[in-house]
């Protein structure tokens, strides 16, 4: 039985002038221990899908099965790592990492013991007493990952967690993420814009089509690990992903479709527009909480 299965997930959003179908029936099976990378054109609904898997948003149709049982509520079996980290600025790094343990009623000594382990794993011990604004973006994402791991979730959901990082920090975290995955045997779903990132990380890459999006193709990836981002052998694999992706990006008329070099694997051109969109989205959500 699959650890996690999406069956015909559909999702509509109401906009001022029209109704937009973001997800057009997404089907995806994720086995225990899989590391699935989700790629797709900007705005196709990857974040929405991940939020539905996390139970943070309700689908309009379809089901999420977790260990074969339908789930609708959010909970610590599927923990989300947000792009901006969503760390709590009123807590120290240690208290952030212990947050989930605290709300589930774990006693203080036990919490300290667990958080110590993960702070150490993410090389954050020195910053345990710092507040989050005192950290670099890369360290913030380490804290976000540590905070997710202490919950010992069955599935880790990561929504472009490294999109805001500089290249060196990103490369380092790409290696570390593979090590964490190998060590913890977690099932991971990882959304990314970056084809190279998907090629390095995943045991499988799921390519989303343009809106209303479905999983267009799943490409298994059994290259030996550890993989590094500039692995020559992975270039062909990246091209294979791109081949699937490019027509979708074009259909959407996204800015990311310009140029056909390896650069648009990064689709950096779409990032700025996307930030704008996210901000707008946030405002909207703020009003409907």
């Amino acid at each position, binding site marked *: 039985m699959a650890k996690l299965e999406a069956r015909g997930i559909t999702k509509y959003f109401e906009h001022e002038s029209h109704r937009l179908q973001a997800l057009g029936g997404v089907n995806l099976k994720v086995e225990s221990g899989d590391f699935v990378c989700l790629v797709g054109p900007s705005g196709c609904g990857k974040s929405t899908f991940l939020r539905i898997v996390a139970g943070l948003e309700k689908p309009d149709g379809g089901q999420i099965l977790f260990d074969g049982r339908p789930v609708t509520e959010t909970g610590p079996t599927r923990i989300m790592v947000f792009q901006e980290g969503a760390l*709590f*600025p*009123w807590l120290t790094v240690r208290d952030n990492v212990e*947050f*989930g343990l605290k709300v*589930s009623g774990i006693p203080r000594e036990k919490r300290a013991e667990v958080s110590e382990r993960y702070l150490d794993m993410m090389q954050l011990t020195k910053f345990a007493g710092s507040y989050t604004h005192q950290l670099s973006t890369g360290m913030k994402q380490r804290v976000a990952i540590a905070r997710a791991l202490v919950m010992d979730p069955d599935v880790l959901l990561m929504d472009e967690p490294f999109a805001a990082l500089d290249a060196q920090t990103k490369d380092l975290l790409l290696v570390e993420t593979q090590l964490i995955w190998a060590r913890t045997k977690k099932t991971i779903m990882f959304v990314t814009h970056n084809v190279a990132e998907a090629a390095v990380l995943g045991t499988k890459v799921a390519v989303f089509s343009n809106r209303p999006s479905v999983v267009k193709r799943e490409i298994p990836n059994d290259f030996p690990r550890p993989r590094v981002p500039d692995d020559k052998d992975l270039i062909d694999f990246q091209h294979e992903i791109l081949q699937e992706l490019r027509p979708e990006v074009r259909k959407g008329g996204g800015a990311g479709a310009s140029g056909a070099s390896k650069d648009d694997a990064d689709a950096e051109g779409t990032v700025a527009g996307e930030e704008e969109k996210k901000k707008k989205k946030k405002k909207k959500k703020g009003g409907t909480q």
Partner: protein
Amino acid sequence: MSLSASPSSKKRSYAPHKIAFYIGLVAVWQLVAMSGVWPSNIFPSPYEVGEDLVYGALDGSLLHGFATSMWRLAVGLSISIAGGVALGIVMARREAFNQTVGSLVLGLQSIPSIAWVPLGILWFGLTDAGIIFVIAIGAVFAVTINTYTGVKNIQPHYIEAARNMGATGGRLITDVLIPAAFPYMISGFKQGWAFAWRGVIGAELLFSYLGLGYMLYVGRSLNDISQIIAVMLVIMATGLAVDAVLFKKLELKVMSRWGLR
């Protein structure tokens, strides 16, 4: 501190200016009083006021008045903080509540504390409870509105992350909503305190029943202007101290934690 604008000295110190200003002010006051334009029972000299302050301090009457007012204020303000935070959170989280109760809160907030005095007297009599009622109701809506704004402005991701990690109900409120909205809530406490402080003095003036406000009333009845001024100085000093020490410290602490300064 040197006067040259070196990068390390961010702020020039105006302490000498301040000291000189206040010495000058008291000197002018003394001169006017000594000039004999007004009789000293109408315009007492700073010396006489100082004398009253010292007597008041020595016989314990000022301290007693101060303590009485502060105790009423503390009880009243605690009630308005507890009530205001609760109301504000429910308003921010339940739109139906916001549209109904919230609209009423906006209206009630425009009523000055002192306007509640007649109701306070009729409902509770000339008792501490009446004064506390006036303080609490005068301050509660400022706390409510600031809490509401604070909770509304919480980044949705914070709430989602917390729910995702299993925080629900009371846990979500104590561990996320309140700390996340706290920077706004401090403004609410500050406004609440200001309303409550004005409210307690005003109510005591009208209730004629112990406290600093009552001492103002007595001063007026006895035509004792220097006592009135002495009490006013205590009121002013307390207001300054609470603002500059208590709230400033709290604000600085929260701001530096969040990295907002």
